[in-house]
Each structure stands twice: as C-alpha cells, then as structure tokens.
C-alpha cells in the first residue's frame, strides 16, 4: 500500500490540475500574440510563449485536460463494454463466449497505432475519433480479465450454491462476480489510461489526433520541433510533463497490480552476501569410524520480514554404511530443510548457523562451494519429492542423466549416453534406448522417479538422500520404487537417508528412524524399538494415526506450529494429551534413554510405565 502513495499523489495532482484548468487564473491557451513569439518568461507567463505567442503554462495545463479527458473517456467506455462482454461470455459460454471473447483476439492482431490510423483516415482526426478508436483498442483487455474472473467464480462453491437456489443470472453476476472482478478491472483501467495517454500524444504528434489549435502535449511537441534550435525549453516542458505523467501512471499500475494480486505482493527479503565461515576453523573431531554421515547440532536460520526463524534446531543423527535411516515427521517439521542444508542447497535466505556434518573425513557445512559441488551428485546424491517438477521439462531424460555423469567424470558425450543407458536399465526402465529420448512429460510418474534415481546413482554415491521420493506417486508405484531402492542398496551398499511422513514406508525400508517435530529431533532409535515401544507422545500419536486392521486411526489434533510461533518449552506440548505445566516451562534436552535411543520429553519415564502414573 505504501507504494501507492507517491505515484497516487502525483497522478492525483495532475488530474486536479486538469480538472481545475477553467478555474485557474490562466491566459487563454489558444490566444495568439505574434509580438511575443518564442518569448522567455513574461509577467503572467512564467514558462514563456510558444511559436504563436501562446502561453506555455496555460497550454500545458489545458493540454492535460485534453489528453486525460480522451484517455479517461476511452478507458471508461472500454471498461464498461469490456466488462459486460466478459460477463456475458463467461456466464453463457458457447456462442456468447465465441462472440464476446474470441472475437477480441482479432483486435489484438493489429498494431494499435495502425488501427487508429485506419479509422482516422475514414473519420478524420479529432478527439471523438480518438475516443472511439482507443476504446475499441482497450476492449480486449477488459473482456479477458472479466471473463477469466467469471470462469473462476463459477467454479466456487458459493456461486454454485446460489445458482442452485435459482437466483437469476444477473443478480448472481452482480452480487458474487463483480466484487471479485473489481480489482483486476481497476488495474486494467489504470493500464488503459496510461496507454491511452501515450497513444493520444503520439497521434497528436503526427498531426492526426487532436485538431489544432486545441492544446495537447503531443501537438506542443510537434510545434516545438520546428523551433528547437531557438527555443529548446519549448520542447522540454511538454516532454517532461508527458513523461512524468506516464511514469506516475505506470508506477501506480504496478503498485495497484501488486495490491490486487497477492502472489506478487509482500516485501521480498533482500539478498545478503552468503557469510561463509573459514573452513577448518573448528577443531577437528574424531569421526565415528563406521558412520558415513554424522550430523551434530545442525541449526538453520532463515531471515524473514518478521525476524530470523529457526526451522531446524540442534538436529543430530548419524548414518552407517549400507544402512537406511528414515527421518519422519509431519509437514513443517524441518526434515527437508535439514537434508537440503547437508547438500548445500539451501535457498540464499537460509543459512546454517550452527552444527557440524561429517561425511567421512569431510565437514559438509563449512565446505567451500567448489568442493561441495564435487561431492553433490558424486559421492552424495539426492532424489527429490516431485519428479515432474524436478526434471527439466525441455531436455530429454537421457540427456539429463548423461549430464549428471559428465558433471563428475571426464568422458565423451557418447560414453556418457551409453553409461546412462545402463543406468536406465538398472533402475528397471524397459526399452531404455527409446525412453532416453523421451521428455519428462511423456513419462509416467513412476518412470520419472526411476529417471531421478538413475541420475542420483550415476556416480555411485556413498550416501543417497531421498526426500519423500514416493509421496507424489500412486500406491502401487510407491511399492515398486521402494523395492527398487532396497535392491539397489543391497547391490551397492549405499547408505540412505529417507525422508517421509509415512510410518508404513519407514517400517518397510529403514533400519533406524529419527522422528522430527517442529524443527527438533524428538525421538530416535531402531525401527523395531521405536515401533514397539515408542517413548515420545508424538511418536505414539503418529503410530496411532496409522490405519491398521480394524482399529480406527486417531488423528493428532492441531497442526505443527509455524517456526516463528514455536513454543518456548516442549514444542509438542500444545497438542499433547499428557502435557503438564512443567512441559512448557523451559526448552527440553534430548535424553539418552538407552544406547542408540534418544527422546525429548520430560515425562517419558513415567509415561513408559503407565501404572505409576498419578491420575491428574
């Protein structure tokens, strides 16, 4: 809204000047005074006189009246008729749609100035002709905007409901559709006015718009061209006023559009230089020898307009060779952000503020980008959630896999293509020669995910991070992909970090599980232990939410809080059936319940032995 103020005020002032022209103490804009031809500033003429001795200031202000009058009149006419046509086309569809909407495409086939010139030829120049032409030119914009809004409004439940109740079409359109259309139509109106000012001045400049001696900015520039050597200021004033008006109107249009369209609005965080800590600053730690990946205290911070948030805090876990560790949790628990941070793929607004992640002998979180790049897709690879959007739509799938090979191996294009063919076969794609030539949109979801897996396996990674690789797929395809991953792991011994929100998938694929909630690890242990004897109320609630046999699944009330509203104490307390005041008092630490078993709950011992529980 703040962005509306400056251009809005400016446009308002220009409008006010134009409207008030007859009331202002100005000399007659068309009274000639040959004695003072091209005179500089005179009493009563602060900006001097033009080539016929007419007062420049007066002509500027009266010119605004002409230009804006033509612009507003044509934009309003186009707005009224265009909105009506759009309403008709959107509501009645069929023939009405064809006549009202599709016919508009033809107007767009003409360059605007030329259509105007054609009509001027027939009707002669003048303000009336201009208004007629301009209103026809801006009709399609209004028709399209209204038509689109009506179509989307029609699909809304409340409109359907009113329709089913038998309300007459005109009333529905007025009550439900028009309020929605108002915003976009207003934007369109401001665009049309701005554009009409440009066209009007252009045609007047050519001598085919407003008829002299009526004042108009375009005509003033046309006149001043002849004398620009003697009186350049005569040229300067109308140019400046015209440009300023259009600039203010354009800025107003942009601000209006942002205000109306929420997708483009909102302050965008400024990019900041990525602060990269010096590698090797921290003392070298003894890595657990058998761990492929050892994450300690990973904390990610994101700058938001409301201040920094920490969607991932103090996350620790490790993965051994040949092992699959599942990270499980609801949406917003920080699973994906954690792994994205490990891959060095965090968006620029997010950064790792604390923690270490040892990948063999390498610390990932402080690794310089060129080194990180060599690891990514090489010794550590990632499979993403949605294979459709994760593959580039404009390249053949084979080329995208071959590209991954060539990023890490110095091989020829043919050799990479040949290798990719082997990978396609390995991930179970039949007829790889043909499939490699297919574009992503020509494949099924399961096939696309196989391509993603082939890409990830291209350089025989030691660690594979799978971010919900089966969520976007059908259930049967899910099972196939899980089998494929398990099989590939048996063959290659790759360690896998598998992110999922489905406990069924965890049971199927993983040996150990990390349960995350609201950016923290709340429980950790082997799959068998965690499933049979969950220690954290959240894990228990998750397990209860899985439909199993005859028992009705019980959902967890509420949702994961957003990162800026994480509770001070136990983050699950507001949704926990066992919460007591002490839970919310202070941040909780992760308790080591047993070797390899951790839980973040102050009541886990008493909850684990329900008989000792004191009734509340």
């Amino acid at each position, binding site marked *: 809204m703040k962005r509306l103020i400056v251009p809005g005020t400016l446009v308002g002032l220009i409008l006010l000047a134009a409207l008030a022209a007859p009331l202002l103490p100005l000399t007659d804009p068309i009274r000639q005074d040959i004695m003072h031809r091209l005179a500089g500033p005179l009493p009563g003429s602060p900006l001097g006189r033009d080539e016929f001795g007419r007062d420049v200031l007066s002509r500027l202000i009266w010119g605004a009246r002409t230009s804006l009058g033509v612009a507003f009149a044509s934009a309003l006419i186009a707005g009224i008729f265009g909105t009506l046509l759009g309403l008709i086309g959107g509501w009645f569809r069929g023939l009405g749609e064809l006549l009202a909407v599709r016919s508009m495409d033809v107007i767009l086939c003409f360059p605007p100035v*030329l259509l105007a010139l054609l009509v001027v030829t027939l009707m002669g120049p003048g303000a009336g002709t201009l208004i007629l032409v301009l209103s026809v030119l801006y009709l399609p914009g209004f028709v399209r905007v209204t038509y689109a809004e009506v179509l989307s409004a029609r699909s809304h439940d409340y409109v359907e409901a009113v329709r089913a109740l038998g309300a007459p079409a005109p009333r529905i359109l007025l009550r439900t559709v028009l309020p929605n259309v108002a915003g976009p139509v207003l934007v369109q109106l401001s665009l049309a006015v701005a554009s009409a000012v440009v066209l009007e001045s252009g045609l007047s400049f050519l001598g*085919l718009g407003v008829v002299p001696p009526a004042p108009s900015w375009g005509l003033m520039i046309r006149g001043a061209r002849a004398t*620009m050597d003697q009186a350049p200021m005569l040229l300067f004033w109308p140019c400046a006023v015209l*440009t300023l008006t259009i*600039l203010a109107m354009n800025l107003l249009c942009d601000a209006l559009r942002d205000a109306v369209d929420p997708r483009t609005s909102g302050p965008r965080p400024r990019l900041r230089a990525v602060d990269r800590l010096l590698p090797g600053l921290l003392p070298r730690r003894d890595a657990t020898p058998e761990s492929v990946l050892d994450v300690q205290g990973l904390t990610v911070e994101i700058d938001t307009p409301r201040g920094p948030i920490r969607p991932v805090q103090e996350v620790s876990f490790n993965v051994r060779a040949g092992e699959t560790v599942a990270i499980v949790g609801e949406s917003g628990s920080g699973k994906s952000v954690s792994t994205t941070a490990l*891959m060095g793929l965090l968006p620029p607004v997010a950064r790792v503020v604390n923690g270490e992640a040892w990948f063999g002998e390498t610390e990932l979180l402080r690794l310089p980008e060129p080194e990180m790049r060599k690891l*990514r897709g090489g010794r550590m690879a990632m499979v993403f959630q949605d294979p459709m959007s994760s593959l*580039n739509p*404009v390249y053949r799938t084979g080329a995208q896999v071959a590209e991954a090979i060539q990023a890490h191996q110095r091989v020829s294009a043919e050799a990479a293509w040949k290798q990719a063919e082997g990978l396609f076969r390995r991930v179970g794609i039949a007829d790889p020669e043909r499939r490699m030539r297919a574009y992503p949109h020509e494949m099924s979801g399961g096939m696309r995910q196989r391509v993603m897996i082939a890409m990830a396996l291209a350089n025989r990674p030691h660690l594979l991070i799978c971010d919900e690789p089966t969520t976007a797929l059908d259930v049967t395809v899910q099972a196939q992909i899980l089998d494929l991953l398990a099989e590939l792991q048996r063959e290659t011994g790759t360690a896998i970090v598998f992110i999922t929100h489905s406990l069924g998938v965890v049971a199927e694929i993983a040996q150990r599980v990390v349960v995350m909630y609201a950016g923290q690890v709340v429980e950790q242990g082997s799959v068998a232990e965690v499933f049979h004897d969950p220690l954290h109320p959240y894990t228990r609630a998750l397990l209860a939410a899985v439909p199993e046999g005859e028992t009705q699944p019980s959902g967890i009330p509420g949702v994961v809080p957003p990162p800026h509203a994480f509770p001070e104490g136990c983050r699950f307390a507001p949704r926990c059936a066992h919460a007591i005041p002490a839970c919310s008092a202070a941040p909780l630490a992760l308790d080591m319940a047993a070797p390899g078993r951790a839980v973040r709950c102050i009541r886990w011992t008493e909850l684990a032995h329900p008989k000792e529980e004191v009734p509340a």
Partner: protein
Amino acid sequence: MAWILRRIGVSLILAWLVASIVFMTLHLVPGDPAELLLSTGGIMPDPGAVAELRDRLGLNDPLLVQYGGFLRGLTRGDLGNSLIDDYPVLAEVALRLPRTLELIFAGAILAIVVALPAGTYAALHRGGAFDRVASGLAALLLAVPVFVVGTLLILMLAQWLRVMPAGGYVPFADNPGRHLALLALPALTIAKGLAAVLFRMTRASVLDALSRDHVRTARAKGLTPRGVLVRHVVRNALIPVLTVLGLHMGTLLGGTVLVEYVFNWPGLSTPLLRAVEARDYPMVVGIVLTISGLFLLINLIMDLLYAALDPRIRAA
C-alpha cells in the same frame, strides 16, 4: 509437425479475419464512406466527386461482390491503386518495406543484445546496485514515449553536440558509413522501449526459473554454476520471454511509424501518414494490411521458436 501445420493454419485464419475487418471498417462507419472521405471540417463535398469516388472504390457493387474482389486482389498481391496519383500500392509497399524491416531488425537486435544479459544479471543479483539502477532506468524508459526520445536525441546529439545527423536516408550501396550513421539514432530509439520491456521480462522470468525444482536438481547433480545458469535457468527462462516479445511487437511496429516520422526515415510510415492526411483510403489499407501481416508473421515465428524450445508445446 501436426502442431506446426495447425499453428500456420491459425495464422492464415487470423490473416483472413484481419483483412475482413479492414474491409468492413469502410462499411461499418456510419454514413456514405465516399462522402466521409471527401468531407473536411463538416463541409459537404461536391456530389459529382462523391459519385466518382464511389465508382472508383467500387462502392456501387453489391457488398459480397466487393468483398470477393477485395480478397481476390489480396491473394494476387494486388492492393489497389492510390486515389491521389493512381500509383500501385504494392509498388510503394515493395519499395519501402525493406527500409522499415531494416529499422525494426536493427532496433530489435540492439534491444536483445542489451536487455537479455542485463535482465539475467539483474535477476542473479536481485536487490543489488545494478538491479536497482537498471530496474529504475527500465521504468523510466518505458514511460518516455518513442517520439519524445527521438526528438530529444535529435535536439541533444544533432543540434547541440552535432555528433549525429538529425535524420534522413542514404542507400547502403551509395555510402555504407553514412547509411549506418543515419540508422543509428532511429534504431536506438526503437530499441529503447523494447529493451525496457525485454529487461523486465527477462529479469522476472529468470527469477522464476531460479526458484524451480529442476534447477535444484541441476545443482544437486554437481553442475558448475555456469552449467546450471546456461542450461537450466536461461534456456528455460527464455521461453516465456519469447511469447511476450511477440505480443509486444505490435507496440514496436506502431512505434516504428512515429520513429520513421521523427527521423525522416523513408520507410512505410511516410506514405502511410501522407495517405491518412490525404484520405487516400486504398494506400492506407494496403500499408495497414502489410504491417498487420508482418505482425502476424512475427508472432508465428515466435510461436514456432517457442515450440522448438519447449517440447511440451509440440505435444499439446
């Protein structure tokens, strides 16, 4: 292939619709077109002259016969003769069109060469000094009408500094250096609006492409920043830029009329403006049809390029 044929078919239908609308304009205007064309300032024209003009324009024939004759003429490339000097419109168009095309081409190249890299750079360094300066400049350039830019360029570079010619035309064969010097300012003027639009579109499109999942995949593969940028960001970002570019060609072609007038460039706009003033209807129609046809052709080429870049379109 089927897609290309269909797209060409659509263009032909649009061309037919454009021609029909131009034809109909003459008859849609209230009153006798011949009388309208001859009247100036509300003075009734001489009835004899009106009858003669009606005869010359073939207005006495039944409407369908006129329409048929008009379309037949178009397919043969016959655009009629000027009302003023009976000169064939097609000959005039054939003489002038190459000069207009040269101007548009030079302006478009100039705009593309500046705006695509600038837009990409601004997007990659969003919020930086370059981005803010260039975005502000683009907003300013969008707001200055072409004829204002042209006139001010003449005032400053030709009148004050005397480093550039104010306008005119010399055939390339006669004097290549002079030809290019005369081309520079009008081409620059045409380029300014297009460059501003292209800069904004490229910037927005690259920003959008940067946030796509497949760019993350490309980075996850371990591609170099350059590889990610060239193959996965710019290539994908160019596709929407192309479409919008095609749509903006209409404004560009219209702007060309003004630019040619400002710089005395003897392209299509000189006879066009003379004909509009003299109410020489066949000449105006011929030139309007030519430029509209050019507009349709440019959009067709843009769409074909689009399909070449985006396999999803060809499948649709």
